[in-house]
Structure formats: structure tokens, C-alpha cells
């Protein structure tokens, strides 16, 4: 790390002294874990994907490098710039998500991916951070500017996203976006009656998903009573944690990655638990908790409602994604395929998460009355 003078007033110099360096280091640590886990899981996954191991590793190294650069690059932007990026991103991602219906690749019964050379892109991954920022802007603008119907537009946009995601179907992503949006509404000061209504609404939506979508129902039933169905994945994951114990079996010594088809993505936490043990898992968990809670608590000093809502939305989305991933592999919640930010293998996911974290870093930079210090 080049030593930057406090007086350095170049773009990078100002960035270095104003950015939330603790979060930045935390993200760097996560990316480091991402490398390690990729090396651990690569032989098994490379074979499954049908690629040579070298290409496989090279691709992920490139993706993680791009993700790191994306984090830094986006965090250089001003809040205004973030707002513009988010607006553009939200529009493009929504359009592409809708386009998956037409040109998408169907994998395991859902059309969520668009095939690009080198990677298959899941546009809804990008929709999540972008919509958080856009929603924050709309809510704040609705407050600030009279007769600007910010809230109705935000709700309408959310409804549109909900319809698109429901028809993919991608109920898990919809649930996270809904939770993020609801958290933003709550933070924006929604009265408690409406909060109660919202909780009820989310609950009934979950119930409807349970009744309407067979795969949702089977997952929940398997979670509630493992004996009813095939709880093989969760059971194997738990065995992997048990196998790992306190210090793990050692790098490359695990075998859950050979057994579970999604070990490199949805069950990467189990791979970490088996090979590196509870302590390393606790460190990963601690980093996620640190990033999320620090991001939320830092908003206590923030005066700008837009910044508060956008940062909180990004942090909540990031945190929920991590929680769902870790909770699934530990049988704390029904299994839901969601990547562990930066740690899981996958280009699309890493870039989307990098975009979100970059925005969060940009928004939480220290500034004076809206201007960067």
C-alpha cells in the first residue's frame, strides 16, 4: 500500500483518507478467503464444470481481481455519482432480468441467467444493490421535494421487480429485495401500524410462496422435518462441519466438496468448516457481522437521509445474503441457494457484490455537508 500523505489532494489521496478503511480491509480479507476457498474447492468443481483446473482458477482469479478493482473504483464516486450509477444499473438490470424470460438459460427449472462469453450473468444480482440505492433516493426525494411522488414510485418499482422475479421464478432473491426495501421503509420512519402491516404482508407472501411454489414448499417441509424428504445436502453439510471440528481437517482434506454439487457456491461455508474448522468460520462470520453492523451504526452520525437509507439498504442486503448462505448450510433456515459474498465461487455474484460494497464505501466516506473532506 503506497503511503499517501494526508495532504495529498489527488483523487486517490482524498479517497484513502476519507474511505472507511476498516470496511475496506474487511472486504479485502473476504476476497482473500475467496481465493483460498476457490483453491480448496477447485479440483472438485473444475471436474464438475468440465473445465481444466488452470482455466478454472484463472477465471476466478480474474473475477476476484475485477471485483476488487470494482469495489475501489465505485467507492471513488460521489454520492451523486452513485445515484446515477444505481439508476442506470437498476434500469439495465431490470431490463435484463425481464429479458431472461426470453433469452435466458434455463438451469434447474428457473430462467435467471443470461449467457455471456466467459460467464453466465444473473442480472437480478445487480438489481439488488442498485434498487436499494434507487429506492433510498426516491424515498428521500419524496420527503424533500413537495409533490414529488417518491414513495408511490418506489412502491411501483418494487411491485414491477416483484412481478418479474416471481415469474422467473426467483423467490429467494425476491425475498431479499423485499426485506431490504421493507427495512428501508422502516428506517425512513414508516409508522408502526404500517410496519406491522408490512410484516404481516411479508408473512402472508411467504405463506403464498409456500402454497404456490412446489420447490419452496418441499424445501420448507424438509427443513421442518428432515425425515419427510431428501435432506441429504443439509445433512452432508452438517456432517462436514462436524468432521471439521475446531481446527478443520486441513486444506484439501475435506470431501464434502466432492459430494455436494453446489459446494463451491451455496455450501462453501461447509467446505470452509470441514477443511479449516470452526475458528476460521468464526472469523468469516465475524467479518460479515463487523461490516454490516459497522455500516449500520455509522449511519447514526449521518445527516443525509438518502445516504442513511441507501447505505443501510446495501448493508442489509449484504448481511442478509451472508446470513441466508451460512444459515442454510448450518440448517438454521430452509435451504436457499445464495452465494456467500466474495467467498463463493462465481463471477456474476462476485461482481454484483463488489458493486454493492463499492457503493456502500462511496456513501460512507467522510464528508462535510455533502462534500468529500
Amino acid at each position: 500500500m503506497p503511503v499517501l500523505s494526508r495532504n495529498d489532494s489527488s483523487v486517490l489521496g482524498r479517497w484513502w483518507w476519507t474511505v472507511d478503511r476498516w470496511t475496506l480491509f474487511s472486504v479485502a480479507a473476504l476476497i482473500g478467503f475467496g481465493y483460498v476457498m476457490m483453491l480448496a474447492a477447485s479440483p472438485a468443481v473444475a471436474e464438475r464444470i468440465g473445465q481444466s483446473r488452470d482455466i478454472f482458477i484463472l477465471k476466478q482469479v480474474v473475477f476476484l481481481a475485477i471485483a476488487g478493482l470494482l469495489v475501489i473504483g465505485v467507492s471513488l464516486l460521489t454520492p451523486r455519482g452513485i445515484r446515477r450509477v444505481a439508476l442506470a444499473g437498476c434500469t439495465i438490470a431490470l431490463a435484463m432480468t425481464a429479458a431472461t424470460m426470453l433469452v435466458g438459460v434455463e438451469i434447474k427449472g428457473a430462467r435467471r441467467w443470461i449467457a455471456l462469453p466467459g460467464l453466465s450473468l444473473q442480472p437480478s444480482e445487480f438489481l439488488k444493490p442498485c434498487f436499494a440505492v434507487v429506492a433510498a433516493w426516491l424515498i428521500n426525494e419524496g420527503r424533500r421535494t413537495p409533490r414529488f411522488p417518491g414513495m408511490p414510485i418506489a412502491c411501483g418499482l418494487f411491485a414491477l421487480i416483484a412481478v418479474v422475479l416471481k415469474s422467473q421464478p426467483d423467490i429467494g432473491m425476491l425475498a431479499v429485495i423485499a426485506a431490504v426495501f421493507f427495512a428501508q421503509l422502516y428506517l425512513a420512519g414508516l409508522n408502526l401500524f404500517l410496519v406491522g402491516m408490512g410484516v404481516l404482508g411479508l408473512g402472508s407472501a411467504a405463506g403464498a410462496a409456500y402454497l404456490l411454489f412446489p420447490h419452496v414448499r418441499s424445501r420448507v417441509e424438509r427443513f421442518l422435518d428432515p425425515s419427510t424428504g431428501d435432506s441429504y445436502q443439509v445433512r452432508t453439510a452438517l456432517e462436514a462441519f462436524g468432521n471439521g471440528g475446531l481446527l478443520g481437517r486441513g486444506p484439501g482434506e475435506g470431501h464434502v466438496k466432492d459430494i455436494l454439487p453446489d459446494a463451491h457456491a451455496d455450501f462453501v461455508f461447509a467446505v470452509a468448516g470441514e477443511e479449516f474448522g470452526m475458528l476460521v468460520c468464526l472469523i468469516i462470520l465475524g467479518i460479515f457481522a463487523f461490516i454490516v453492523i459497522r455500516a449500520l451504526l455509522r449511519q447514526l452520525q449521518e445527516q443525509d437521509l438518502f445516504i442513511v437509507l441507501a447505505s443501510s439498504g446495501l448493508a442489509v442486503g449484504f448481511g442478509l445474503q451472508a446470513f441466508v448462505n451460512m444459515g442454510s448450510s448450518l440448517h438454521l433456515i430452509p435451504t436457499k441457494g445464495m452465494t456467500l459474498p466474495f467467498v463463493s465461487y462465481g463471477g456474476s455474484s462476485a461482481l454484483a457484490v463488489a458493486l454493492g460494497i463499492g457503493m456502500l464505501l462511496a456513501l460512507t466516506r467522510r464528508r462535510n455537508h455533502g462534500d468529500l473532506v
Partner: protein
Amino acid sequence: MTIDPESEPPQSPTTRRGTPRHGSVPLMETVWVTAPDLNRRAALERTRSRLVLAAGGFMFLFVAVLLKLVDATIIQPLPAHQPERHAAQPFSPPADEQPAQKALQHEQRAMITDRNGEILAISLPTASVYANPREVADAAEAAHKLKQVLPRLDEQTVRARLSSEKQFIYLARQITPGEQLAINRLGIPGIYFEQTEKRRYPMGRVAAQILGGVDVDGHGIAGVERFFEKRLHDDPSPLRLALDVRVQAVVRDELSRAMQEFGAIGACGIVMDVRTGEVLAMVSLPDYDANKEGEAEADARFNRAVTGMYEPGSTFKLQTASMALDSGLVHIWNQFDASHNIHIGRFTISDFEGKHRWLYLPEVLAYSSNLGAAHIAQTMGAERQRAWLRSMGMLARTGIELPEQGLPIVPPAANWRDVVTLTVGFGHGIAVSPLHVVRGTAAIANGGILPRPTIVDKDEESPQGTRVMQQSTSDTMRKLMRLVVTNGYGKSAEVPGYYPGGKTGTAEKVGHHGYKKHANVAAFTSVFPMNAPRYAVYMMLDEPHATAATHGYATAGWVAAPAAGRVIARIGPMLGLLPDLTDKAAIDASLYIPLRPGRERAPAAPVASANFRREAALRMTAGPATSHDPAR
């Protein structure tokens, strides 16, 4: 934020958080704030309190993950592959030796032995190799390695099965210990062994149909294995059969020899203890190696002795004669008209080489006269005949402990017309199994007690069963059976010193369009020694063909009776019966009955032999084509 310019300078200025003390912007105690701004600040305050709540919520979630993580890794770590534990249990060294030993013994299927303790069936420990494909990391490599150890596997198939999503597949059953060791040494994860047992039949073809067999899971599927499935499974002590493998081997040997000599398509032989009903030998040819039950043809698996239903033919004349004598309606020296063929409906009953005169009852048996037997049956009537047959067990299953035992083919009572009475009198129009015939013969010879045939060794020596005739009737019948061998068609069964008696029976087989002219079932049912009956010997050939040595005959007297004689000569010493030649004169006298009242005395053996040769020559000149009668 707006500051009121008219307010007093602050007494105790507060500073904004985060700003240095010097040059800080003082906050006034009294400030004017615009209403929208005030609202905005209140809203921000509410937002902040809710932010703390949200952070707390996340804290809760992450702590939950933390607790669950600690629980899953060190507090209650899940042992790997619990589902496989059960199957793998036999391999883990048992903590307590005693119960494990017991459990193993309990699982072992009981042995089957013959009456002398020779092992007929035994379970040997063996292993099956199976896989949990979900744990097999590299199906192709695993299949390749397994192929090296077990060349009988198909590599492609194994690879496909190992790549499936199942959790349990058998790769090979009943592998050898060497193969198990070699597979274990391959160290392929997801491959396991299951301790099983393999049923072996050390005697191979001996008693194959009686023993039956077990399926791949060790459950009996035929024969004794099936009938005693529960017993063999629950009780580890050996199941002792009544069979004597030595007798079984002799019967098989003589049967296959006769079968080869006369080009028969099948053969059947039974040796039964006439007092207890124990079956010492039961052979059905063709047979098969019991260890290769799966490769056996259906014909080989068919047990002719209990499943095959054949018209008994002239052997049934023993039943007709016993019934008549026991009823008291017929006297031994009554005569029956064999001079004219009987025409009834569209049937004609005639004699083979008939005497064309009236015959005494002993002559009816010795010359095997159909006309005589038909007249006796007519005298008795349908009702007594049916009652007799029922009491002799000819209308139901024999009750032997074999699941394959068949039901006799008997005309229904409503259809039991006169012609049926007549033909059944000489063993036609009814079909029973060889075991039915043997039991009936045993009952006639043993003093009149119908034994229950059994394949299991019994300790009792005394006659078991129900009395079906008077002792005196049985005594007379013994003499008549002996007469058939000394003076009738059964001469070739004679064994010096064993005094066998019996009855021949040759029946044309029933085809799709009536009787088949040149397809016979030739049987000889006999008991020895006739002075103190111990064993019934039954020998039957299915579709024998005449040879030059038999002068063109394929009848029971030529093909089955000699085989029975050879069996008696060989098994007698084995069963502790030595030929009694010293008391020959006395025994011959005690068994003597003349063909006709007061005409002949007991002939000396050489005379009988000459007599036999003369009759044979006579029969040859008469030729087989002279009769269209199915029974001889």
C-alpha cells in the same frame, strides 16, 4: 440549522461532535428552527433509533449463526455417514463379544442334513460389496479399479450405476474373501461390504429338487428350504431329513442307468420306510446341481415324485384287490371273467396277452388282467371304490413337507360313471403322484396302516398312521405281491434273500388327443422283504424305449422291475438287512400262495427262472402290436 442572531452568547457552549475544539461552531441554547427542518430532524432521530434496532436485529441473526456453528462443529458434531452405520455394523469390532456371537448365530441359516448327519445344505459366510454412489467421487476411476479385481463386472454398467443419484447399489453379491480383501485394498470411498451368507449344497445333484434352493437374500424358494423357511431361519440347530444320501445315490445311479439304457426322457424313484412313512430316497431325473439352481431347466427342477401326476396303471390293481378282499365281498378263490372283452359305451377293455378264460384273483394280479380288475371293481361299485380311494389318500395331497406336492387328477363324483369305476380298477382315468402309489403300496404291505409320508427324520419305529384295512387282508396281499415277482410280470425284480414283492404298471401317457400310443410310463412298485416288510421301493421310467435286450418291450416288467431289483440288492445291506438264504424254504413257504387253488406247489427258484424265460419268449412272438389296450 439557523441561529438566532439576537440571542445571548452561550454560557456553556456545546460543540458539534467530531469537530475540533478550536474553531468549533458553538451551538446556542436557544435556536430557531424552521418547521420542515424540525420535522426532518425528528425523522432522523427516529431513523437513528431504528438503525440501532436494525443493527441489533443483525446482531441477533449473526449470534444465532455463531451458536449454531459452535454447536455443529464442537458441541454436537454430526458423525459422518450415519445412514451407513447400520449396514456397516457387523464389521465394527463388537464391544461385547457374547451378544455379537449370538446375533451371528441367529442370522446363520440352519444346516440341512440327511438322517445320518451328512450335510446336504449349509450356509457359508460371504460378503456382498455395495456402494453409496453419492459418496463415490470418481465413478470412472472406481469402476476401472473394481473391474481389475472383479473381472466379471461390466465396467460401463458399473460406471453408469456409480454415477447415479442413488444411495445404495449392489456391485457384486457373494464375493470371495480374497476379492473382499482386494477391493478393500483399493480404498475407494463410498464402497462398503455387507456380511451375508451363501447357501451351499455339498452333495450337488443329490436330492436337488427336495432341497429346493434359496434366493440371493437367503430366503427359501422351493423344496425343503421353502417349506421350512421359518424353522431354518429361527432355529439354528440342523434340520435332519429322513433321506439317506447313500440310498439316494443308489436310486439315482440305477435310475440314470435305466434311463440311459432305455432312452427315457425322465425317471423317478422313491424308497420309503413302510412303517413310518419316512422317505429315504426320492429321485427325479433329469436333475441339476443344487448349487446352480438358477441355471437349471424347468424340466430338471420338476419333482416327478410329488408334482408329476401319472396314471398309475396296473400298480393300482393292488388297490382294487385289497379293497375287494378287505370288504369280504370277494374271496381269494373267486373267479373273474377274462374271456371276453368288455364293451362299455365307446370303450373296449381288453387284456394284454390275455388268457381268454376265467381267472382266479391271484392270476388277475400275476397276469395283470385288466378284465379281471375291471370285473372286481364292478363287483365293488363306485361308492365303495371312492370311499376306499379316499381312505388310501388317493384323492388328496399326500401331506409330505414339500411345497411342490400336487393334487391328484380325479374325475368328480358326479362324473364317476360305470366306465370310470371299471378303468380306475386297473389304474386308468385317474392320475396320482408316484408318492401316492408308494404310500398305498406301503399301507398294503405293512399290515394295513396308511403312513403319512414325511421327508423329515422321525424317531418312532412303530407304524404311524391310520388303519385302512384288516391285518389279514394285508397278509394275503403280501403273498399276492410276492407271487407277482415269483410267477408274474415282476420276475426280474427278484433278489435272492430279500424276498421282494410288488406290481408292475405300464400306462400310456395322455396327450392332447387321447392316449399316446408309443409313450409309456413304466413303473414298478415293490416292498421288501415281503416276510417282514421294511422298505417300499418304487422305480419309474418316463417314455422308455425298447431295446434288443428287452425283445422289443418297453413295459414295466422289462425296464423298471430290474432296476428295482438292483436297488434292493444294493440298499438292503446299507439299511442293515442282510439277505436271508438260510431260512429260504421256511420264508418261501410262509409267503406261498398258488395261482389257482390246489394246482401248484411252491416252485423252486430254477424252475421259476425257466418259467420266466419261456414266458418271455412267448411274449416276444406275440409282439407288442397285438394290443391297443393302454394297460398291460
